[in-house]
């Protein structure tokens, strides 16, 4: 079976190797220490964003929508990154933007995973007409370009934050559904699922306790990527005026609001864009590391 790479002889008589200390914290610490450089950078970026988002009111020099100076003021001691088209402090809005943009993206992604993941596992476990129904519905939703569809729906239902989360969540859930269903299909054919079925287990046990733990690694990896996409979609919608509404600070709309400055060779409008880009890169570093780790895990089995 697995001869190379597994020098531990597989006889019953041989005592198993001692288990390394396995408190969750110790394991996490060890993994972190061994993580490649890129993953550490990614983790640092994410930690910084979370810190900024959590302590925005403490860090930010001014309020979120407070008008504190002239319009389009240049970078100065009072306003390190200048002011925007209404005279609000750019740095403060960047800091609050982390809170809004990242927070909403996170909620949306969570919703997408809850919906798409549940339906995906159900489709794979139940099969038959249920699978057909869910899969074909998803096909229809995916056939329409996502951004245009989102704009259409937002125009119909109105641009509130709740609508934004629900609409982008449902649209992104289609992608999650496809992945969850595909990986679950590989799991539901295993003998331990048959064994659970023959034991008489109900649907809830089979999906939550038998299937879900086995598809977690690809789902978590997908979560990181999906978060970036959701994030970009929200920013794109905000830039188009359909996303997060003023005066709430949001990186997408901040690019649009200050975009006139680009004509004058000022890089201020690019700062919110850079905030988006850096987070995306950070998340992807971490996801890459996670994917690598979980695929390595697979080889061991």
């Amino acid at each position, binding site marked *: *079976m*697995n*001869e*190379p*790479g*597994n*020098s*531990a*002889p*597989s*006889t*019953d008589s*041989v005592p*198993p190797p001692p*288990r390394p200390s396995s408190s969750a914290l110790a394991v996490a610490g060890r993994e972190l220490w*061994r993580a490649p450089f890129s993953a550490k950078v990614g983790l640092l970026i994410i930690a910084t964003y979370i810190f900024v988002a959590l302590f925005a009111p403490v860090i930010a020099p001014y309020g979120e929508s407070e008008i504190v100076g002239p319009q389009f003021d240049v970078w100065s001691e009072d306003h390190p990154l200048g002011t925007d088209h209404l005279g609000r402090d750019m740095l403060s809005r960047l800091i609050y933007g982390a809170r809004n943009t990242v927070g909403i993206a996170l909620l949306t992604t969570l919703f997408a995973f809850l919906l798409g993941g549940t339906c995906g596992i159900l489709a794979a476990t139940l099969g038959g007409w249920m699978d057909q129904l869910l899969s074909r519905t998803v096909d229809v939703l995916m056939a329409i370009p996502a951004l245009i569809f989102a704009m259409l729906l937002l125009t119909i239902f109105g641009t509130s934050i709740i609508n934004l989360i629900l609409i982008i969540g449902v649209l992104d859930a289609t992608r999650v559904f496809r992945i969850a269903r595909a990986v679950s299909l590989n799991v539901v054919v*295993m*003998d*331990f699922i*048959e*064994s659970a*079925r*023959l*034991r*008489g*287990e109900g649907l809830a046990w089979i999906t939550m*306790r*038998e299937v879900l*733990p*086995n598809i*977690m690694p690809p789902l978590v990896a997908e979560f990181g990527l999906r978060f970036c996409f959701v994030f970009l979609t929200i920013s794109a919608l905000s830039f188009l005026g359909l996303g997060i509404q003023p005066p709430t600070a949001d990186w997408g709309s901040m690019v649009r609001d200050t975009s006139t400055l680009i004509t004058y060779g000022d890089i201020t409008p690019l700062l919110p864009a850079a905030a988006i880009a850096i987070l995306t890169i950070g998340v992807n570093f971490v996801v890459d590391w996670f994917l690598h780790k979980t695929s390595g895990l697979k080889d*061991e*089995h």
Partner: protein
Amino acid sequence: MSESQGELLLEMKGLRIEGYSDEQWHQIVKGVDLTLHRGEVLGLIGESGAGKSTIGIAAMGYAKPGCRINGGTIKFDGMELTTMSESKKRKLRGARIAYVAQSAAASFNPAHKLIDQFAETVVEHGKGSREQAYADAKELYARIKMPDPDRIGFRYPHQVSGGQLQRAMTAMALSCRPDLIIFDEPTTALDVTTQIEVLVTIRDIVEQFNTAAIYITHDLAVVAQMADRIMVLRYGETVEEADTRKMLSAPEKDYTKSLWAVRSFRKEDEAPAAEPTPLVKVENVTATYARGLVPVLRGVDFEIHRGHTVAVVGESGSGKSTTARVITGLLPPQEGKVYYDGQELPADYHKRCKDQLRQAQMIYQMADTAVNPRHRIRDIIGRPLSFYLGMEGDARERRLRELMEMIELQPDQFLDRLPGELSGGQKQRICIARALAAEPTFIICDEVTSALDQLVAEGILRLLDHLQRDLNLAYMFITHDLATVRAIADEVIVMLQGQIVEQGPKDDIFTPPHHEYTDLLLSSVPEMDPDWMDRVVNERREKGGLGAAGN
């Protein structure tokens, strides 16, 4: 099998190979010496993890990804392989050293015809044109007695049977007339009736072309037929090496003796007298797949009594496992009924009550996939306890420990582990404990030992036998291995193409006269006697039948 002391072809000295896992290097092969002369067949045997495949592949100067050769020398026909450049080694591989893998199905490219894959090596190494290769392939196919040798090469791999594919692979290995062929468990995945065909082919070919071979297997009876010399490996070291006959008749080391003794296990006690009502009764079952389009079982009818072991034998596709699926309710039959203790069971498992489900448990062939890799042993065995018997807390813990003792594993050491941290044999024991936890009266064992090494398999059989006596369990033992049947069965059912061809008490089945098919099955099981294969081949030639079974 000539006693050839030809010219030295391959010589390994102090070979050391290490593999990378768990972020460190482990020594897999720990200084092995090996010599092979032209025309000689060397058998490498040992349990999984002994390093036999790793050594076999090293004969081509190759180490699998994640492994590296870190010591010793490998001399092939005077050339040192460990220091040779990759491009020079490529010229040797396929042309002078060929490799036949365990799974021919996985080794052929499914998108190309057999004969094109044959010709590829020949053309690549500049040994001839495509047309010459085609002609040669047809000749070889004829020599290994493939049916319709002129045309079979133009089929795709999925269009021929498993045994034919393995023979086609042997023919392919011969395409450049190599000096050395490495056979890595070439018949392990095949049925006994097919296995003998492939073995005969391999041996004839090796003799005809005076090719040297390394034959890797864990099956002693097979290696006894094939090899001139046997080398026993364990934990990457040579245990013992001797000529086949000497090794079989007088092994020196204890480990070798224990390997030889494995097949001697026999169930001791007679089964209890049959009660008037059978525990499980399968009545005239006919079942189909694909909504009635593919018939798989026809008129299957048998009984299993309390405390008895019924072995169901037959080759793959004979309907053994399907019968189990009908009994468990996974495949409701088209006609016929299943009774449990005199009462009819609902055909679909969804409609059976918890108690009916509890009474019949199942143990699977692949213990790896039969337990959830993300659940701890405690949860795997504990679930039936709380699910069926409502045990919680201390009572559950106490029972868990009892069960662990029953399967001879230390509770403290194992209960908190994940299945991935256990060996194959230990995982199979966990599966047995899970089945026992439900306190069943009937257990279906589906090829439970065929994925295990012989020593480990024997341990499992002894455990099952011991449990049967203690708990008065009935087993339905699905297997293709007749040695296992001999060891533990009370009654035997022989199946062929979805029908029962013969059934009865074990002694009746194993003593002549047999049904024609039972006879073929029984006579195909390799024996430890090195002359066994010649004898069988001669017998069958007299009857005029060899070559038909696998086709």
